[in-house]
């Protein structure tokens, strides 16, 4: 085992001063369970502000003053969810250019489920628990592929709508061009006749 913390968890800097917001976004389908955690080194002159917003800009989760925490929520509607970190300074003077490295972990679906609870509730042996996990994972994979299919369907529809819109747009501009040309010729003919030039 390595001596490092949880493998493959990168950190990102949150600049001090509160001017810059570091945001991440993730797409979730309705009723997905999302859990995660963040961790930042403690700092004397600022605190970390964390918030989660859904695609309609409603606040799903807000947390100030905590440098380290877990969170968990269920997605009410399908769409993009945004997770933002800001540095909020406690004093009005902050060191220029400094930043804190924040670790952020995000999991959803099967990875988010608490299996120890399931084990105690249904009195499962460890092996049986692993089997249940595997089975639910297989279900999730299946559902993921169904989701892919429905999205591919939607894209197909958008694509063919674009295709026919391009055709109608060309015909429209052709029609506008021809009719405007004819209208111009007709108007000029009338104009010159009125001026007795023709």
């Amino acid at each position, binding site marked *: *085992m*390595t*001596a*490092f*913390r949880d*493998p*493959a*968890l*990168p*950190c*990102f*800097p949150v600049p001090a001063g509160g001017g810059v917001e*570091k*945001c*991440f*976004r*993730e*797409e979730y389908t309705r009723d997905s369970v999302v859990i995660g955690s963040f961790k930042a080194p403690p700092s004397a002159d600022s605190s970390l502000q964390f918030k989660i917003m859904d695609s309609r800009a409603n606040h799903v989760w807000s947390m100030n003053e905590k440098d380290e925490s877990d969170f968990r929520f269920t997605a009410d509607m399908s769409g993009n969810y945004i997770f933002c970190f800001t540095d909020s300074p406690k004093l009005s003077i902050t060191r220029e250019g400094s930043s804190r*490295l924040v670790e*952020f*972990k*995000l*999991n959803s679906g*099967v*990875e988010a489920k608490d299996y120890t609870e399931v084990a105690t509730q249904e009195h499962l042996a*460890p*092996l049986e628990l*692993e*089997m249940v*996990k*595997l089975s639910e*994972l297989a279900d999730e*994979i299946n559902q*993921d592929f169904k989701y*892919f299919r429905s*999205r*591919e369907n*939607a*894209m197909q529809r*958008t*694509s063919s*709508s*674009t295709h026919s*819109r*391009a055709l*109608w*747009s060309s015909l*429209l*501009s052709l029609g*506008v061009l021809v009719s*405007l*040309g004819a*209208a*111009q010729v007709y*108007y*000029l003919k009338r*104009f010159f006749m009125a*001026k*007795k*030039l023709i």
Partner: protein
Amino acid sequence: MVRIFAVAVLVLAVLANVSAYTFQVEPKSQECFYESIGKDINTVIDYHVLRGGLLDIRFEVALEQQYPDVKLLIETLHFEDQHSGRYEFVAPETGTYRICFDNRMSRFTAKVVEFSISVNDGRWGTGGGHAKSEHFKNMDQQARQLSDAVDDFTRHQHYLRAREIKHRNMIEETNSRVVIWSIVESTVLFAVSLFQIYTLRRFFEIRKVV
């Protein structure tokens, strides 16, 4: 029975190993991430540009040494059709590695980038564990192969999802471009023809040809 349990544990241990981040890189700025990686660890970084302009971004991985020295491992301008969006390397030293996505070459377009790091943390170790008999050694190998296959599968699924998002963005943009274009074109044609008529009228009226 115990072996099935081992397989199950291995399979699940694998799936928690991929962490993905999706974020926006503003024009004229870059976003950097720092990761501690041990020496000789096989690391794979998969990234996609999901939205924005030509879907290009400058990708850089560097090893941070004694400040201010930095050892550059790779720096490349990633283009959609030319690069695979995958960088695999073996960490030369234990230390902090900096992964940057640079959008400074763009003046107006923000880019949405998604990346994930997979680390092969040598979980298989050396030797076959407790397995001594041939029978168990085979099972062990099968379990490892299965676990690696599931790892690959998870990565493929992740890749598919990113590509789906990318294509969806592109198609929606194309669709709205067609609508806007038709409206603009019709308006311009109309305005141009009115302008022509008006100019001709003025031309004849000033000259007083009549």
